[in-house]
């Protein structure tokens, strides 16, 4: 691999294989995440998108293949090196994952207090700055239980940005949001990426929303990348799997039915 591609791609995954028990999740997956862009990882539910994020962040170890983040081989890092790398990454979890016993302010202040010795007055200013960026400065004293789903995700985004990461990972950020919250999150993903010079990785199966925000998209199916390109390129892709996913057809290469024995046989058997 030449040095130019090394510097252009902040994440490089090659020939990734991973199993959970007897179930094969990835079977020779190759992905490049370009630096400074919004990259979408799409695919049907259960295809392993969140697992891929866990492999990228060193929460899981691959069975085979390489996962490099900014030139570092993630699976071979020690715990201390991994934590050092994670300080440069932020992650927005599907349900926000706010610490429920802390207020909005303390949640955003949490990584600052844990990782820095900044005076409390500066922490205060930084937290308000981050909360202002997501439009929730006024909610600083609310508890997580008092927030709507969209608000919780915005607070989690402010917390993920607290240490000014280079890479921001969004795990299904649009799930279960009302149209207004969804629009807010969409705009935030784009604005944060461009204003702060981040690299954003958005894991999602929301085709239309992704098309609005992503510079490049990967479509994963059956453990491999089956489509890659800009949202327009993916929309024009003639592959049956890509077309099924992009148009939302119930049946196709990704079958509607879970593998099952013959229906008639199953109905006639008493012990089924």
């Amino acid at each position, binding site marked *: 691999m030449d040095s130019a591609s090394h510097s252009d791609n902040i994440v490089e995954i090659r020939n990734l294989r991973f199993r959970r028990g007897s179930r094969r999740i990835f079977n020779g997956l190759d992905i490049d995440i370009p630096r400074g862009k919004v990259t979408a990882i799409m695919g049907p539910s259960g295809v392993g998108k969140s697992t891929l994020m866990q492999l990228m962040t060193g*929460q899981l170890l691959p069975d085979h293949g390489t996962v490099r983040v900014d030139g570092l081989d993630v699976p071979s890092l020690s*715990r201390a090196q991994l934590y050092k790398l994670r300080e440069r990454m932020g992650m927005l*979890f599907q349900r926000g994952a706010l610490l*429920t016993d802390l207020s909005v302010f303390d949640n955003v202040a949490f990584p600052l207090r*844990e990782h820095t010795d900044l005076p409390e007055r500066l922490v205060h200013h930084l937290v308000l700055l981050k909360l202002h960026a997501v439009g929730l400065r006024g909610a600083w004293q609310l508890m997580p239980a008092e927030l709507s789903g969209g608000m919780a995700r915005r607070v989690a985004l402010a917390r993920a940005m607290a*240490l000014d990461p280079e890479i921001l990972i969004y795990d299904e950020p649009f799930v279960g949001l009302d149209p207004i919250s969804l629009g807010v999150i969409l705009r935030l993903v784009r604005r944060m990426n461009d204003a702060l010079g981040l690299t954003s990785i958005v894991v999602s199966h929301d085709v239309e929303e992704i098309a609005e925000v992503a510079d490049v998209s990967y479509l994963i199916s059956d453990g491999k990348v089956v489509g890659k390109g800009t949202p327009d390129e993916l929309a024009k892709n003639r592959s049956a799997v890509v077309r099924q996913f992009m148009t939302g057809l119930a049946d196709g290469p990704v079958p509607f039915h879970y593998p099952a024995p013959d229906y008639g046989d199953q109905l006639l058997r008493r012990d089924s």
Partner: protein
Amino acid sequence: MSRDDIVDPLRSFVQTFGASQLFLARLITYTPRALLRPSLILEQIFATGSMSLIIIMISGLFVGMVLGLQGYDSLSRFGAEDSLGAVAALSLFRELGPVVTALLFAGRAGTALASEIGLMRATDQISALEMMAIDPIRRVAVPRFIGGAISMPLLAAVFSTIGIFGAWLVGVRLMGVDEGAFWGSIRQQVDLYDDVLSGVAKTVVFGVVASFLAVFEGYNSIPTAEGVSRATTRTVVITAIAVLVLDFVLTAWFLDKDTLG
């Protein structure tokens, strides 16, 4: 019964036991550094200790009152009711204080610890800490472990003190045992090292075991409603068994030392 029916549970037990020992080693390794952040530990002493005070005090009072009644009834058959204070104090310091407090601690604080940590895992809070480059064992498990281990001996001391008050209430105020004899027998018969400190040693061991089991079960729970519920139940059951077994072992050891000594 096939070979797998025997091998699988055995393998699972060995794996869980090994994992628990590694977890304990990490807890102990991180403990000295955790002591440098006393505010986190004080928070947990409040959550596990102070919040358990009511149940410990009420239980201690009634256990002491029952001791007063039973002790008076038994001792009066030998005309030895003046020794009621010593009997109640010895029972409380050596056995009932440590054991009953540990069982109540497992039911009140242990379940709270296990379910809290289990729910943190189920709601991705543990993963969020990992992603913030904060070791959840260091930040979540260790302060709770230390807080619980410190709270337990303090709660046992409260239990025994209130228990003696309960025995006094029934023995002296209700049954008419001489007040001077009640307190005098305690001063005469209760030995600081053999009786009080052996009880304190038990509470320290039970505190470490109960806190460790609660934190371990919660931290390793399956991140579902059923998984957290199972972890909470296992915390109480395993702690109760461990406390009773350890109580026998420690009692035998202390008595053996006394005999030899």
